[in-house]
């Protein structure tokens, strides 16, 4: 298993380089209205799709944990939330960078996609904060409950902003709905490359979490053994069976 990781890492790096090449080359035509700046889409949109997929995984893992109390489900939940927040951050950073040259403004409050992504980011950051500051044994349960709340909130967030924006002025977004086939092709390749990358990061984070729990257990064992020995020493008639 351990030897597989470097091989996959190299393959993913090549895949990502290929996707980058496609994104910047003449193989994908320049957008008629926006010019070459539109190519940010090949990083912005795949990151968004990856983040949404990871948050979906977090929701499923949290529900599984609530029903079955499986430790593996909890690890999957924390891993997917953390990596999802990383990808979500990229969406929120590349979004305004893209908006500024195209719309002239960094942020449009009625822009439903970016605004609902911001709320999603806030919800999952609060999830990670809860995990960090909850020092008790029920952290996992509380976090799973919060994840369910967050997931229930998502459609409500989307619809509230959707209606809100119909009543407020919108930035004029150039370009039609459908994409040229070569553009779509590059977008999908880019997404697949980032998915492989996301998988590798999740795998690493998973191993990190396993290591972390191993260390925690070792600490717990140490204090148990220590307590046991000091308890034995204080007993007047100790019949030690060791």
């Amino acid at each position, binding site marked *: 298993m351990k030897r597989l990781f470097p091989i996959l890492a190299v393959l993913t790096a090549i895949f990502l380089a290929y996707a*980058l090449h496609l994104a910047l080359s003449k193989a994908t035509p320049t957008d008629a209205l926006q010019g070459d700046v539109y190519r940010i889409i090949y*990083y912005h949109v795949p990151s968004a799709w990856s983040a949404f997929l990871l948050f979906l995984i977090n929701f499923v893992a949290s529900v599984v944990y609530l029903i079955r109390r499986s430790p593996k489900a909890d690890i999957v939940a924390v891993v997917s939330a953390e990596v999802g927040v*990383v990808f979500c951050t990229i969406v929120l950073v590349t979004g305004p960078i893209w908006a500024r040259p195209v719309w002239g403004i960094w942020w449009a409050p009625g822009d439903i996609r970016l605004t609902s992504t911001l709320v999603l980011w806030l919800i999952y950051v609060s999830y990670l904060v809860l995990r960090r500051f909850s020092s008790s044994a029920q952290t996992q349960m509380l976090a799973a409950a919060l994840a369910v709340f967050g997931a229930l909130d998502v459609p409500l967030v989307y619809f509230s902003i959707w209606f809100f924006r119909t009543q407020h002025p919108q930035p004029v977004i150039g370009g039609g709905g459908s994409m040229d086939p070569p553009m779509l092709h590059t977008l999908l390749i880019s997404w697949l490359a980032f998915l492989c990358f996301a998988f590798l990061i999740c795998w690493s984070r998973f191993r*990190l979490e396993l290591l972390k729990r*191993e260390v925690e257990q*070792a*600490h717990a064992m140490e204090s148990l053994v220590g307590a046991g020995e000091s308890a034995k020493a204080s007993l007047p008639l100790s019949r030690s069976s060791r």
Partner: protein
Amino acid sequence: MNAIKFLFAAYIATWVIHASYIGTLVLRFRRLRQELQELGKRK
């Protein structure tokens, strides 16, 4: 063209964020392995 600056800014920002996160993973790995070794020595 001025707009191209934004394109490169976006791409660079993406990789900076990924690199930072992977960096924190590496640091956390090292710290935990150290801790595990120390615990092993104490036994």
